[in-house]
């Protein structure tokens, strides 16, 4: 993976093959990207809860870009607890890539992701792990419920949730919550990039994994005004659209472009047919009619969409050999 080369290996921070690297059960991956709280506090409170479960664990912080304000507390933390892994990326890659790199460096058979600020009360982490172990799910994602938030925040969260539900056919109440527990095979199979971390439960479900939600108590530090710039909203919308195509049409692009394309060009052809008859039957000239341009443009647009679908099929075909269309649960 090309991003691995981009990691600033802080020699004093990373000890890849030290004597302390034994098998661990639980890997806690914390991507530090964009917004973060008191990282020491995060580490200490969660470490306390996890030690109480008696399982072996490791903490991995992935710093998305060398931001000194985040790196400084991590350095101090690392001095006190040398077993923590800190990975600093040399530029901003986005949270999804930070997570993916954290996954690569993790060793536990269970991977737990945490957000770099308090989204959920730390004690809930134990309940989440219990639930995860007990019911044999491949992934359990936290659902902050009841949600303490401003009306506006709840409204935009609702719009986002509805959009994801309609386009992907999955129903998660809090799909982008940072607290999730997963089996190792989940992180191994899912390729994360861009902003796809937000939809990890949807992607896991599409891969055939069993995903469950667990209502947890929201942290009081989670409160923030979430009014973003218009550009952010546009990006979110594009993210959902990307997800939609990934989930529904990556294996059959012509199903989508072909259908839309033929509908559009058919409506164009109907207009042109009408105008053609109109002219041939001698009702008058059509050259001055804007409807003619509309008909032509619809035909052209439809055929363009259709041909993009064809090209998509060609791309799928060339890669049909190296990707499997199925995931096997078991061979007897």
């Amino acid at each position: 993976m090309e991003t691995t080369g981009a990691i600033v290996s802080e020699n004093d921070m990373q000890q890849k093959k030290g004597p302390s690297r034994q098998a661990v059960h639980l890997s806690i991956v914390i991507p530090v990207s964009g917004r973060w709280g008191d990282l020491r506090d995060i580490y200490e409170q969660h470490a306390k809860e996890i030690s109480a479960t008696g399982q072996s664990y490791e903490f991995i912080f992935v710093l998305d870009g060398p931001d000194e304000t985040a790196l400084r507390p991590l350095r101090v933390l690392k001095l006190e607890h040398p077993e923590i892994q800190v990975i600093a990326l040399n530029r901003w890659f986005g949270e999804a890539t930070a997570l993916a790199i954290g996954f690569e460096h993790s060793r536990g058979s269970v991977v737990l992701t945490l957000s770099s600020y308090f989204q959920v009360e730390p004690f809930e982490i134990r309940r989440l792990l219990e639930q995860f172990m007990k019911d044999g799910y491949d992934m359990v994602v936290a659902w902050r419920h009841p949600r303490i938030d401003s009306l506006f925040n709840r409204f935009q969260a609702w719009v986002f949730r509805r959009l994801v539900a309609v386009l992907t056919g999955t129903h998660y109440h809090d799909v982008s919550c940072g607290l999730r527990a997963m089996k190792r095979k989940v992180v191994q199979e899912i390729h994360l990039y861009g902003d796809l971390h937000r939809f990890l439960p949807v992607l896991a479900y599409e891969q055939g994994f069993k995903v469950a939600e667990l209502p947890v108590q929201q942290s009081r530090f989670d409160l923030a005004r979430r009014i973003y710039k218009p550009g952010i909203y546009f990006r979110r919308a594009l993210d959902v659209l990307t997800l939609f195509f990934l989930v529904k049409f990556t294996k059959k692009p012509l199903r989508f472009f072909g259908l839309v394309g033929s509908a559009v060009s058919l409506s164009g052809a109907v207009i042109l047919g009408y105008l053609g008859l109109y002219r041939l039957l001698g009702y008058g000239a059509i050259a001055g009619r804007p409807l003619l341009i509309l008909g032509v443009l619809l035909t052209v647009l439809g055929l363009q969409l259709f041909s993009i679908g064809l090209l998509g099929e060609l791309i799928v075909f060339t890669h049909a050999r190296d990707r499997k269309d199925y995931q096997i649960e078991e061979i007897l």
Partner: protein
Amino acid sequence: MDESRKLSPYVSIVVPFYNEEECVGALYKKVRRVGESLGMPYEVVFVDDGSRDRTYDILQSIRKQDPLVRVIRFRKNYGQTAAMVAGFDHARGDIIVSMDGDLQNDPADIPLLLAKLDEGFDVVCGWRKNRQDKFLTRRLPSLIANWIIGQVTGVKIHDNGCSLKAYRSSTIKKVPLYGEMHRFIPAMSTQADARIAEIVVNHHPRRFGTSKYGISRVWRVLLDIITVKMITGFSARPMLWFGFMSLPFILLALATIATSAMGSAELVPDEWTVMYTVAFSFFFLGFHLIGLGIIGELTMRTGDFVPAQSLVPAVQRKDN
């Protein structure tokens, strides 16, 4: 080197199941009886395509009793093509037979398929000549679809949709199958230079369960036919295909300009604007298509699959 010339030919029978708990047991008994009578080693590969009923439990108990059976279970329902491909991927035989898990195909036809294969074919398709399904919703659409597939791809098989087929393992493992390509195995297998034959097979009415397909698939099948045509006919030369498509539009654009120019005396300036807009739009479409053709060429060059048209067969067959 030539895998099909081993001393003991070995047959793998691949059967995908999706929610067929009533059929599994009976089908296994029939397949086993036929397998024993073949007079050569065989194995059975059952693929459970994410069934939610007891199919997998029954398969497990069959597996326990019979070492010749292998069972592959999918994590979720991936569809018939994926199930068949998984079966092909895991089949160890030199000859692979595929059939439906709903008891409508008759395993007793397997020896006939193998005999035909022995005449020197690579793919032998079953033809359900006396198909036991409803005429209006199943047989008529199928007749039309098969006719179109034959016309468009040039592989004229009566019954593309029949799952009961026999293949040489070396051939079918080379055929790229994905999406819902199981309907187009004959056409797609031309990608592996297959020699194709068909024979009439039995077909029984459905006794248990329900059909997993309805009439809604018509438009999907139509779009798939276009895809298959492009892949089998033009994937080696995408530029040719897209360039060919662009030609009528560029001609149309030129014709629009020419006719407008000839009638220029009668056209007022507004009408000129309209006619030129029309002509330019067609030009754009033409160039768009040529551009896609170039990207298509790039895709084929950088992709890892080399289509059959551009290949000389690597292994020369020893024809008797």
